[in-house]
């Protein structure tokens, strides 16, 4: 491994660019993870609200926001907020490698290289653990969504099999969908451009960081195995959701068709 020449500002600058690029890539991946988590939270909330609505007896003419919905929205909102603050805010206390390099003097002895290597390994390890936590969160949320969706489907089937007497007119639509989508997309305004380009610099400091990442190959491959095992569960649950939706569609289509026959 080459040792940086004392006072070589160009090498330090290239190393900062390399470390910053890796930081942007990690941030992009974590932002996508938060986006998917937020979407799962929103879908879970909608499924819980729908199930709560179907459980009311008699079923209300309009969908009314209740205290229970507020409680659930706050719980999910606070949980997501904590995750987001931790994901982005940890960099204030756990200094990214490029920020560490920026505050260093030009000296580049072996102790400095060791410190850079250790910090690189730590930051990468934290990123891997966070990603594993995100994947686990998605699977857990999806299981909850499918479970409550299935219970809601059973309620719907029971309701339609024993139809209640007519209970009045109906309300208009909400235009909140576009606002929600815009909010979701806002997560993807994290610097994407810096994450997709490749930096070819190969000085001693960059080699130190590359070697530190390579040293964690075992942990990375273990995480990959966990991701693929979680992927099997994810696929099973997703197809469960698809089947439930298809059956709900068949149920409602048959009911509408029977209504048309009566008319």
């Amino acid at each position, binding site marked *: 491994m080459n040792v940086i020449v004392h006072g070589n500002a160009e090498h330090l600058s290239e190393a900062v660019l390399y470390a910053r690029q890796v930081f942007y890539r990690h941030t992009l991946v974590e932002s*996508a993870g938060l*986006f*998917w988590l937020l*979407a799962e939270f*929103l*879908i879970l909330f909608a499924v819980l*609200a729908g199930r709560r*609505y179907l459980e009311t007896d008699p*079923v209300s*003419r*309009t*969908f009314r926001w209740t205290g229970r919905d507020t409680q659930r929205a706050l719980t999910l909102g606070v949980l997501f907020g904590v995750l987001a603050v931790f994901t982005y805010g940890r960099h204030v206390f756990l200094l990214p490698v490029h920020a560490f390099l920026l505050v260093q003097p030009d000296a580049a002895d072996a102790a400095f290289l060791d410190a850079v290597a250790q910090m690189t390994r730590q930051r990468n390890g934290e990123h891997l653990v966070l990603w594993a936590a995100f994947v686990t969160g998605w699977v857990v949320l999806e299981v909850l969504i499918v479970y409550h969706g299935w219970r809601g489907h059973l309620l719907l089937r029971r*309701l*339609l099999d024993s*139809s209640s*007497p*007519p*209970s009045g*007119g*109906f*309300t*208009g*639509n*909400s235009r909140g*969908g*576009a606002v*929600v*989508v815009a909010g*979701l*997309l806002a997560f*993807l305004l994290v610097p994407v451009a810096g994450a*997709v380009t490749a930096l070819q610099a190969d000085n001693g400091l960059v080699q130190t960081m590359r070697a530190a990442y390579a040293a964690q*190959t*075992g*942990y*990375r*491959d*273990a995480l*990959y*195995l*966990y991701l*693929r095992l979680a*992927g099997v569960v*994810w*696929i099973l649950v*997703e*197809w469960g*959701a*698809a089947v439930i*939706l*298809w059956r*709900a*569609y068949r149920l*409602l*289509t048959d*009911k*509408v068709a029977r*209504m*048309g026959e009566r*008319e």
Partner: protein
Amino acid sequence: MIREAILWMGGCFSPEQYLFWTRIQCIAWTAADVVIVFYMLRLANLARCTLGEPLHRWPYFVLGATLLPLPGVVLASGGWAVFGIELLVTVPHFCLIVYVLAVNMRLTAAFLQRLLGGAPSP
């Protein structure tokens, strides 16, 4: 001991195997996503048709457009390419799901009332 166990797990799974299974799983869960979004749109349009509301049209085009990058998963050279394609495909899917839920939540109550009451369509 945990550290050794994790490293042993890592030793059993190579990056090439990871990429191979990622491609397969990616296509499997994306297919499920497409079915989910498709039937959500069908359900929403069933309700809107019954109530005399305008149907959703453009979401079907968005859903169809998300299928275009999917063959790229098979040809992807590495994990980053697969990740990028997944973003292109799943972000619109999630946005469609949340949009359909938000726009049709109140209308769903009216649709259910129509089914329970059996009143004639407009």
